[in-house]
Structures are given as C-alpha cells and as structure tokens.
C-alpha cells in the first residue's frame, strides 16, 4: 500500500467494541465485511440505491456503502448478525422465514433491519407506510408480497 494513513478507531458493533486501524476513505461496509467478518451487509450498487448494505446506526437505517468507517465512530452500529441471540432468531427474522419472504436473500438482511427500524419508529404502520419505508430496499427476485406479509405479521403480533 502506498503510505496510506491509517487511523485508529473504535467501532461499537452489535454491542461489542472493536479497535481497528482504518484508512480514512474506507467505507463502513468494507470495514464490517473485511475487518470484522460481518458479511450480512452486502454491496449491491455501491451508491446507496439498493439497500443491500443497510445497517442500523443508533437505530436508524443507513447505507453502509455511503458511510465512512471513521464517521461511524462513537455510534451504536447494529448489523443483521446482532439481531439473533445465539440460536434464537429475532422475531422479525422468524417472521421472514415463516412467510418465505425471500428468494436469493441477498437483500434480506437489509430488509430485516429496515423492518426492525420501522417497527421501532412506528409500531403500528399501515400498509402504505410499510411500502414507503421499505422502498429503499430492492428485491430483484420480487418477493415483495411475502415481505409485506412478514411485516404485517410483525405489526399484528406487536413485534418491535
């Protein structure tokens, strides 16, 4: 590498502190995947349009391909790996399985995290709110009808 300046940063990911050396231009997405081995967030478009790289930063959805790792310091980051507790899945994850709300599933962690954030913000969202909230996550296989049912179930079951 060409005399790259590395900065020591501390990232709080899924409740665990990680001390890492990051170059100032490296994205949060690449840091999560390459440094921390958290591969649930994925690059789909690289420009914040597809939502496959969605993670929660202080509970809000962001595209981790557009956030620099250094910007994430001091914030609480949640990835899909942080949702389940051991073998026990988060109820939103379970609902996605129960409603077969995925096909290739490349987009699924992003959808699940967006659903978690939505229900946190608005525990009883109407269908239109769900559509708008999840419009930033793209599913090319076209599993939207099943995703809608998975989220509706979370709403009915008061999961948040």
């Amino acid at each position, binding site marked *: *590498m060409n005399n790259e300046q590395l900065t020591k940063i501390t990232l709080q990911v899924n409740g665990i502190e990680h001390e890492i050396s990051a170059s100032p231009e490296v994205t949060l997405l690449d840091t999560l995947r390459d440094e921390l081995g958290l*591969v649930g967030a*994925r690059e789909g478009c690289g*420009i914040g349009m*597809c939502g496959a790289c969605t993670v929660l930063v202080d509970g809000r959805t962001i595209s981790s391909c557009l956030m620099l790792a250094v910007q994430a310091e001091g914030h609480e980051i949640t990835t899909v790996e942080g949702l389940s507790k051991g073998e026990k899945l988060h109820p939103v994850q*379970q609902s996605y399985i129960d409603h077969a709300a*995925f096909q290739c599933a490349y987009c*699924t962690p992003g959808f699940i995290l967006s659903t978690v954030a939505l229900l946190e913000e608005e525990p009883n969202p109407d269908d239109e709110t769900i559509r708008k909230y999840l419009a930033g996550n*793209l599913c*090319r296989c076209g599993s939207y009808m099943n995703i809608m049912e998975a989220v509706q179930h979370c709403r009915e079951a008061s999961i948040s």
Partner: protein
Amino acid sequence: MAIGKSIPVVDSVAKVTGTIPYGINMKLPNMLFAKILHSPLPHAKIVSIDTSAAEELPGVVAILTGKDLGQPNGPQKLITGFIKDRPVIALDRVRYIGEPVAVVAAESEKIAEEALYMIDVDYEDLPAIYETKASMQPDAPILNEAFPDNCYRHAKLRHGDIEAGFAAADAIIEEVYTSPAAQHVTLEPHVNAAQWKDGRLTVWSGSQSPHRVRGSLAALLGIEKDRVRVIVPPLGGGYGGKGHVRLQPLIAAIAWKVGGRPVKLTLTRSEEFVNVTKHAVTITIKSGVKKDGTFTARQVTLHWNGGAYADSSASLVGSGMVRAVGPYRIPHVWVDSYGYYTNLPPSGPFRGAMSSQTTWAYESHMDTIAHRLGMDPLKLRLKNLLVSGDEFATSEILHDIHFVECLKTCADNLGWERPLDRSGESETVKRGRGLGVMMKSTIPTSQSECRLKVDTQGQLSFYTSTVEMGQGAHTALAQIAAEAMEVPFETVTTIGPDTDRTPFDTTTSAARSTGMMGMAIFNGAEILKQKLIEAAVPLLEHPAEELSVKDGHVIVTAKPEQRMSYAEVVGRNNLESLEALGAFETKGGLDPETGQGLSTPHWHQGAGACEVEVDTETGKFTILRYQSASFAGRVVNPQLVRLQNDGNVIFGLGPAVLEEIVFDEGQIINPNLSDYMIPSFLDIPHQLNGEALESDVGEIHGIGEMTLPPVAPAIANAIYDAVGIRIRDLPITAEKVLRAMNNE
C-alpha cells in the same frame, strides 16, 4: 409425502442471519484480486499495449493481455461457444465499450485498480454500428470476417403455404414492435475465482451451468475435463445472466499466468452492465385473419441485436424463432429470426429468454387484431388458443396444454366478464383492462444426472449440479428425493454443485431443473431401492421379488411387519453406504431449413391480466390489480411456486415499464441503479395474485418464467383499453403514453 408441502427452504436460517456463503464472501488462502481494464472505444484496432509501468507497481503479481493467449500448453485465444468468436480477452481489436483489454492480478483490489491506470493502450478508431438496421447495410463495418453480412444466424420456420394463407385472409394486419437491451441486475454481481494447482484448475463461479463452464474451460486449455473442477456457491440471483460462459475463461487465464495462487474477480455494478445484456430486438409481425377471427397465416421477422460476439446468441436466435409464433392455431406460419453483430456488449438469456420480447409483440398484436375485427380480446384468444392434440407450427403434436385454463383463470379473477368499474374515473383519469398469454419452449436436448446415497445413519445424500440461486431448487429437489426414496425430508442433505462430486447437468435455466432433475431423482431412486432390496435378500431371507420398499424400509411385501430400515440394510452388509446414479434426458431438434421437428419436451404456459388507471394529463399510469396464472403440472412446494409466480410478474414489470439500457455511441449512460431503475415496493400493484394450475397426470413442470412474458403486453393492452393508444416500443413509460395521446 414431502411433495406438495410448503417446506421452508433448507437455508432459511442462513438467509435471515446473513451467513449464507455467497461467492462474494469467498476468501481463499493466499488469494489475489483481479481487475479488468475495459475498452473505452466501441470498435478499434489495438495498436499497442504497454503494461511495463503497471508491472512495476508493488503488489502487482501478473497482467494478462491478448498476447499471452494461444501459446502451447496455455489458454487458447477464443472461447468455445455455439459460435467460436469471443476472445478470452481482446486480441488485436476491441468490438464494444467495456470489452476486457487487460486484467491485473494483485495483492489487493485497490492495487489492481491502481495498476489499470498505468497500462497504456494505443487504439486506432474503426467505424462502429449499434443497431441491427446499421449492421445489415452493405457498407457496414464487418465485425467477424466469417460472417461478412454481420448476420451469424438465420433461423427459419416454414409451415404450410404462407402466400396461400395470406390470400385466404379477410384482413392482413402488420405491426412492428421493439424491445430494448436490459440488464439482469442480480444483486450479487458475477463472482469468479480460479486456481492452478498440481496440474489442475479449480474454479469457483457464480454460474448457473457448472458443467457447461467445465467443458468450455477444458476445451480452452486443451486438457481433459477431469482436470477442471467447478464449484458453485449459492448465487445472489441469476435470471439467465449467469447461464452461459462469460468471465470464467478470463479468470482461468489470469490464474494460469499467476500459477499457484488463487485469483478472485468480483464485478462492480457498472461492469455488470457491459458483461451481458438482454437482447434488443425489432419484431415485424403480420397476421392474416378471417372476419370471424380465424387465423389464416402469420409471418414474423425478428432482428436480434446480439452485441459484439455471437456466442450464446447463435443458439438463442433459434429459440426466439420458435417462441415468436404464439400459442394459437395458425395453419400457415413463416418465421425468419436473424442474429446480428453490433458494437455493443454481448447479449444473453434474460429470464423468460427471448419469450419476453416475442410475447410483447404477439400479445400486443392480438389486441390490435381484436380491435380491428371488433372482437373482445379474450374471445379472440379463446377461439384460437392451442389445446392438447393440436399441431404446432413446428409440426409437433402438443400434449398437456392448458393455455385456455391459464388465461381464463386470470380473466375470471380479474372479473373480465363484468363491466369495468368506472367509479374511480374522472375527466382526466381513465381505466382499462388487458391480458396476455405466453408459450415458451424449454431446451429440446438436455440431460440431468444425480447421485443418491443412503448410509448407515439413515441419511440420504443427494448430489446435484443444479444451482441454488434463490428459486429454492435445493429444497424442492430434496422434497422429490425424500418422496422418491420414501424417507423423511429432514434426512435428506443436498450436496453440490461441484463437478468433482456432482454428476452432469446441462444447466439450471429455462425452468428445466425441477422437471428434468426431478425425473433423474425418480430414476435414481428406483435403482437405489432395487439395490437396497437386493442387499436385504440375505437379511430378510426372502427372494427379491417378494420384497418391496416402504417408508424408508425394505419390507416383505406379504408381511409388512417384517422389515428392515435402509440404514440397517446398509450396515448389516458391512457397507458404509449404497448409492445409485439417476439420469434423465430429452432429445429434440428442428430442421435448419424448415424449423420442423421437436422443439421442446414440454411447453411453458402462463398468462396475466390487469387493470390500469391512466392520468390523461400526464400519461402516468398505475397498475391497480394484476392476476397471473402458470401451468405448474404437479406442484412440489406451493410456497416456492407462489414466489416464482409473483416474482416473475414483479421482475417482468421492470423491462415492461422501467428498464432500458441507454446507449450513446455504444457507451452506456445509465450503468447504475440510480439511472437504471428496477422495481421497488412502490412500483408493484397493491393487488397481485397468482395461481398455479395443477394437472392430474402429475408431470412436474418448471415455473421459473411462465408469468413474466405476459406482463408487458397485458399492461399495454390495458392502456389501449383505457385511452385508445398503442405503445409498441418497450418500456411503456408515462412519457410515451402522453406523447402517443398528444399525437392522436
């Protein structure tokens, strides 16, 4: 009985926890990273390539250019395909913007990328062509000297007497439809890695066709197939774009040059757009009809834009010919399907391959005919739809045909017979309804094999080269295996694809896998059950004829309580396992001069109907309701079928109303998901229903494409019904609708 149940897919937990091992996650020990230098010109001579500065960059391990190819004991220059015309990497000429000119392998992606900027290529511009109309001009530049007219395939279908057919018509209606290039946009890009070790090449590839890749690489390298191993991780989407050989030869060649260390190549989103596209096409369709709606003749001329290299297009242009006719009784049919070179990225199959383009033409055309004759579009179709026992334009006699049921299901569920609900209409908002039906052949000659193995633990291992790309094939096939072997679903483990371990399969595409691999499983299970029976003869002390198989046991047929589990049969024979190879193949083919023969083992059948609302002031339209139906034969997993039916409609909405790759002098100006939009939650109908029609005879059909092709014509037909304008060029956009209304 495992068949018929909505069993969650086997990798559900990995999918929701994000741990599914896609190729993009793959890390191999000591791995290098590759980056491609792409041609910036649509057509040019390569005068020189200077890689010396890039080679000096610390961290660069190898750089491959065309000069490395064609040496003894190394990769050949051209990739084996239906027509051998595509170089592994540009030789002395580039033919499209984006064509690989050099590839760098380095210690990191970043170094590889930096090295690209240090490679100096000197080009000499050549005249370029972008549309088939330009390709066919007598003075057009020639892209491949073997085909001086730029046409590498002319597929012909000749059935009956076309002139007599048109002479007998009361009306002749001719229209031209176009469909542009589009991109598959698998959210996971193409990922390939390769390693040369101990005289063997191992390739990890996000491919839909591992054995096709293996065959192509063995030919490229002039080595035996068993010296090439292709391993396929789960794919983040395929949709046909990963079906043919694309970058595997390139990664194999750079790995060969590196020697020893593995090299991985992951495409960026913009690179995906130049890697493979949907075929753009211009379709001229002409029909002769009687006043009562009886067809007398149909002539279709298709000009497919296959881009700069023919490879898979040479075959697909033939498929497009068969798929251009439509599911109707027409006595005299004449089709000319031409594949042309242009200076654009190469094209390949795109979910509903060739059918989504042809159905756009023939189903829009059906409505034009209906309106000309003053007939209801549904009635015109029902009058002419093919049924079992009819002869198709290829002369094959059709069986298991359900177009009428598919279409009627859609029409009934939409309420076609009821007057349209106009309560939502106003001066400026109009509503309309439309429908469409499609007929698609699958691959006529293909083969599927699998290996089934029972062990002493009572586990059934199912080895398959069918690729899991989200469609749930590994779950549906495991269900078939469980049922065929009469064991619980939970005891089945699916292994593969890995060409060292999993036997031959032609490809996971054309919605062939559940049917073809399913038959291979049934055949393999019969053999394995017979082996178990024979192995049980000394243990149960009865001759084989008196034994049979039930619920995972070999039983004495007359005394079912006298039985022994498979595991025990294997164990008491002092074996680790018993196994069998199952195989199934179909053969077909068409006469090259007449297109007569057998085009498919069975027909894919689907339909759609929708209601739209059009704002006449802006041209904006909304699909209020969409109803689809596919013929599914015997359903293996209802939930997976539903995902395919709905997924096809949603995927199909993209090219229908949103997607078009826009070129400017061969340069794609929208190679990203900001300018190239794919359907989101806000683009889909609020009401979307699908039905899978089942058959009593129990043949398992694929359902991966059936409801896609009718989407675009159903919407265009509904828009015509609402505002009386006919859109003939995809995608159907608000701008086109408004412009057409203003021109009325």
